């Protein structure tokens, strides 16, 4: 069984702070991590490696520092790591990103592609399904659980919706997007870390190695463009009180009365 895990290195956006004076984001010193939904996908792949001896390749499109995330994946147990890195990939929207990743995937054999549902910086949840479309393979997103059927030619997944879930059978080759809730990713072992930097390697591919129209990569290839970005203007704060509980409760009740907030 051959599995390709699409993984993104992201800034830990939960740790971002606003500068109290200027109101702008403090971007320096934000730790970089493997995106949570992707890491769950990697863990799912590594479980299939444990169970069935599957071969696991991790693939990332990113700047050179994404090497670190790929080493972490190798240290966790991935067999092969590929970094797609090229200045010409920069500024890509999801359409250009998915096309680039699909072009890389086409150079490999695979049964199953696993992508995280969404990345914590972009939050679009678009790249996984768009890769599946470009490869013309079935997709199932919002996967919380998966099992391989006897014969190892298909999987049964739990696909969640707001009000419940479906159990779905899908044959290889296919793509699934995974949720962080799916599992608890394993830690890297000391031996794994050593191997990740010694015996194993991160292959680096550029746009030149991909069979795609170069004009479709990066900002140039992106149908969507950022016209502007801005920090939200803080709302003018209301009144603040520090007082006894009964006085506080009274303040709230008066506000509710004033605003006709009723049953």
């Amino acid at each position, binding site marked *: 069984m051959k599995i390709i895990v699409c993984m993104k290195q992201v800034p830990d956006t939960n740790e971002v702070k606003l500068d109290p004076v200027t109101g702008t984001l403090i971007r320096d010193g934000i730790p970089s991590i493997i995106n949570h939904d992707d890491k769950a996908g990697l863990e799912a792949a590594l479980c299939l490696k444990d169970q069935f001896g599957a071969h696991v390749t991790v693939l990332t499109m990113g700047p050179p520092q994404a090497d670190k995330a790929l080493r972490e994946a190798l240290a966790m147990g991935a067999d092969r790591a590929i970094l797609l890195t090229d200045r010409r990939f920069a500024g890509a929207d999801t359409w250009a990103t998915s096309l680039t990743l699909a072009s890389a995937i086409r150079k490999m054999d695979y049964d199953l592609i696993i992508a995280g549902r969404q990345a914590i910086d*972009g*939050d*679009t949840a678009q790249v*996984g399904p768009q890769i599946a479309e470009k490869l013309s393979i079935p997709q*199932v997103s919002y996967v919380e659980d998966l099992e391989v059927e006897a014969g190892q030619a298909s999987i049964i997944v739990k696909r969640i919706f707001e009000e419940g879930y479906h159990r779905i059978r899908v044959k290889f080759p296919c793509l699934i997007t995974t949720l962080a809730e799916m599992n608890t990713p394993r830690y890297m072992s000391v031996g794994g870390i050593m191997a990740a930097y010694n015996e194993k390697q991160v292959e680096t591919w550029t746009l030149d190695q991909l069979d795609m129209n170069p004009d479709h990569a990066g900002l140039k290839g992106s*149908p969507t463009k950022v016209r502007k970005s801005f920090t939200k203007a803080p709302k003018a704060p209301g*009144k603040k009180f520090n007082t006894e509980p009964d006085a506080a409760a009274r303040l*709230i009740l008066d506000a509710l009365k004033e605003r006709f907030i009723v*049953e």
Partner: protein
Amino acid sequence: MEIQNYSDVMVFVEQREGHVQKVSLELISKGREIADELGARLKAAVLTAGLTHPVHSLIELGCDEVILVEHPILEPYTTEPYTKALTEVIRAHKPEIVLFGATTIGRDLAPRVSSRLDTGLTADCTKLEVDLESRNLLMTRPAFGGNIMATIICPNHRPQMSTVRPGVMQMAEPVIGRIGVCRNFEIAFSPEDQHVEVLEVVKASKKKVNIEDATILISGGRGIGSPEAFPILESLADKLGGTVSASRAAVDAGWIDRNHQVGQTGKTVRPDLYIACGISGAIQHLAGMEESEFIVAINKDEGAPIFDAADLSIVGDVHKIIPELIRILPELGNRNAQ
């Protein structure tokens, strides 16, 4: 792709087992506004195995045309039959804009359709405006994990596609007797279009919590101290006719189910009243509730960022204030007996 050949606004009307989802009604309302600004028509694309919702109500809400694709293969939802059908409808009608609800269905379908059509898609838009000069849709959405806002355009590709979360746009008043048409659209489905096999459909056993519809939310965060504090919040919610919600921290701690989660990775709510109890006010949380009409924040920490977003800020202990508030609440009832 000749941009000038594309016109009109289309809303993908999402239905589940024949029931139209509220987010689609919100988007029809917004779509109507956008169509009016552009001097264009509004169309609804409904894909279903059988609709229980009356089509004329979609017209009353603002649609000029309802395009109905009806076939058994469309229930339950699976990606390929929906992608095939919607892509054909879009190719035939050439709308300049297509709107989807950002639901677990919309976020599976819209990217696949946008990729098949090789056009741009912008997710989780909180604001949609029209630039009349260029006829471009200005799509504003949270970026960088919700820490900043970005306005996105799709200048050279059509249709421009957007997903919008439930509860972000307002539903309009229907215009009873409004005129529009409904047309069936035939798609030649075959069994080969079904790329997956749905073995089982399971509904959540617990009572469905719908915080997005609540007009009053009493929300608990990490600062309430323990899961045992939630019953106090529930009691207040009951008395006010509201619902309990929570921050991501409380959900991640296992104190309450994820269905109650408000925020960037949870739900977007805009109730008339939002009482934040023991919630610090991380940007990702604010992103989900800052449009609430009236925000009350109670927190022991005077420096909690939630106070910058609240209309009424109380530095204090939730465990003392909420029970006291419950005690004096009957005063409201006297005034409002109807």
